[in-house]
């Protein structure tokens, strides 16, 4: 059984939890052909985590790890199959959509693909007007002002209001998507690979913008990305995901320097560094990322793990707290357990 992350550290306990999940599960049915049996995959497999108010939690992992599914499930854009979601202390897991709406004001999302996240048939003005109308953010007279101010805060201006998305570049579209997320003055924003589809120079602009807005509006971010250098730059804490599980979660610097979990080691060492003095040892083995369809009794990383032991194959490890607020799901650290881990 996966364990609820239970921190003993005083500093973290003082921090206020804004978003929390308990054993969150999201499953999809997969059918290979009409005649085969339906199988289930679990991109979100019993995830329990806490996101503290004001922090940026980075989620990193490769394809199939479930990070995108996690982001959407927390916002209930996908309905969870099991587990609980808490926002600001309130259980929003099973709220009917009419009641959920008042929470949506505070929890927003920015998507990865700037070319498909804006309605091609709506002008920018219309796109930004919708949340105002739905959440009743202001009265009709003040609407244009609110829209223009929000647009200005992301670096665009009046002349852009009546244009359509196809008249903008990728970076500008992403700014518009950010404006849409900001307009309801949310507390929490899920950023789902917000810069992955952009060029390097535009990426930097958007990252800077997100960091400025975070300061200005005291936002809490769940920042999902496969780009480790960006995650490191923006996050306070990092969660490493593998095949639906969080395998390591802790403060950014600690995760980066220590790389406790074998997968974290593999992942971070695979990133090609733009530094010619640090040429990587490029292994040419063929370990593959297994598909979510594969069933494991024990640890999911067993096949690829250089440190595997018999007990890893048989049963799944729980979280062990290796440092204050830093948890690793690996038997290697069983003896390092400093506090209690509840099942």
């Amino acid at each position, binding site marked *: 059984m996966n364990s609820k992350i239970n921190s003993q550290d005083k500093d973290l306990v003082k921090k206020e939890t804004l978003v929390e999940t308990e054993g969150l599960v999201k499953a999809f049915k997969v059918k290979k052909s009409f005649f085969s049996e339906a199988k289930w995959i679990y991109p979100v497999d019993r995830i329990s985590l806490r996101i503290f108010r004001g922090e940026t939690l980075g989620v990193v992992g490769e394809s199939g790890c479930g990070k995108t599914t996690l982001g*959407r499930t927390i916002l209930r854009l996908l309905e969870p199959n099991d587990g609980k979601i808490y926002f600001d202390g309130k259980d929003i897991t099973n709220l009917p959509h009419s009641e959920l709406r008042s929470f949506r004001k505070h929890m927003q999302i920015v998507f990865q693909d700037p070319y*498909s996240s804006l309605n091609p048939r709506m002008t920018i003005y219309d796109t930004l007007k*919708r949340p105002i109308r739905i959440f009743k953010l202001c009265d009709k007279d003040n609407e244009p002002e609110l829209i223009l101010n929000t647009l200005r805060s992301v670096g665009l201006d009046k002349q852009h209001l009546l244009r359509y*998305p196809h008249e903008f570049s990728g970076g500008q579209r992403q700014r518009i998507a950010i404006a*849409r997320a900001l307009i309801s003055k949310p507390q929490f924003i899920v950023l789902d690979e917000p810069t992955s589809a952009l060029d390097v120079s535009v990426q930097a*602009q958007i990252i800077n913008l997100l960091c400025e807005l975070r300061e200005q509006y005291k936002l809490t971010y769940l920042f999902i990305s496969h780009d480790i250098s960006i995650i490191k730059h923006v996050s306070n804490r990092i969660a490493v995901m593998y095949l639906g599980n969080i395998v390591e979660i802790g403060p950014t610097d600690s995760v980066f320097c220590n790389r406790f979990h074998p997968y974290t080691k593999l992942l971070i060492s695979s990133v090609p560094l733009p530094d010619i003095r640090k040429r990587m040892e490029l292994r040419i083995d063929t370990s593959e990322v297994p598909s979510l369809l594969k069933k494991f009794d024990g640890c999911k990383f067993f096949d690829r793990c250089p440190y595997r032991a018999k007990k890893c194959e048989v049963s799944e490890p729980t979280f062990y707290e290796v440092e204050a607020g830093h948890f690793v799901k690996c038997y290697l650290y069983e003896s390092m357990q400093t506090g209690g881990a509840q099942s």
Partner: protein
Amino acid sequence: MDENKNEKLERYSTLRVVLRRMKRNKGGIAGLIVVLIYFVIAVIGPWIVPYHPDEPDFESALMPPNPKHPFGTDLFGRDVLSRVIAGARTSFTISIFAVALAVFIGLVIGTIAGYVGGWVDEVLMRFLDIFMAFPEILLAIAIVAILGPGKINIVIAIAVFSFPSFARITRASVISVKSNDYVEAAKAIGESDMSIMLRYILPNALSPVVVQATLRMGTAILTISSLGFLGLGVKAPEAEWGTELAMARSYLESAPWLSIFPGIAIVLVVLGFNFLGDALNDALNPRLKDR
């Protein structure tokens, strides 16, 4: 500021791009011209006919084309040109209402099936299958036979066999549009399902429907004429190209002009809609590729 000062900021809408692309398609332009002429004749028909289309003149019966009657006269002495012009109005009104009705029903069914999915989708698709199992013309004949002749019944008959294809196309288009992030984004800002369907999905799913509607106009006109030819069409003495052809059947050798002109009219108009529909298809697809 983010903007490159050298950029010429050109505002262009869907319409402008589509028109520009259509200009390149010669067939499409020809089709468009034919359709427009058809539309104009249908509207101003009653004011431009040289003779009243239903007025008989037995002295001038069965006259070949001549300066007084450019298309000749039929066995009742009615001016064929006037009857062809009047026929345009008849077929136009029936077909436009029939296609509009089919589109409406198809949009509703297709959007619900595509958006909701699951068993609702299954049930609706099987319901459509029932209608699609019949050959279109047979279905039309059956309905007119049951309901009786008359314009409204023909409208119903055509709409009944046409709506399933609109439903299918809408559903496919909706399913494709649904996968875009902006639909998820709409959910994230609290939009209701109805609002999502009307504001986000439908406007983006319409292109294939527009193409199909254009092509269907041709089919509808052909069906009206077929029913007319079979004697199940509009009641006499109302002018309609198909009924004209039915009457002309016995006179194929003796008075060929009675079949030629209504026949050409049918062919031209149906071809016109087909060419226009094809050109629209190419122009709308790939849609504004803005990467």
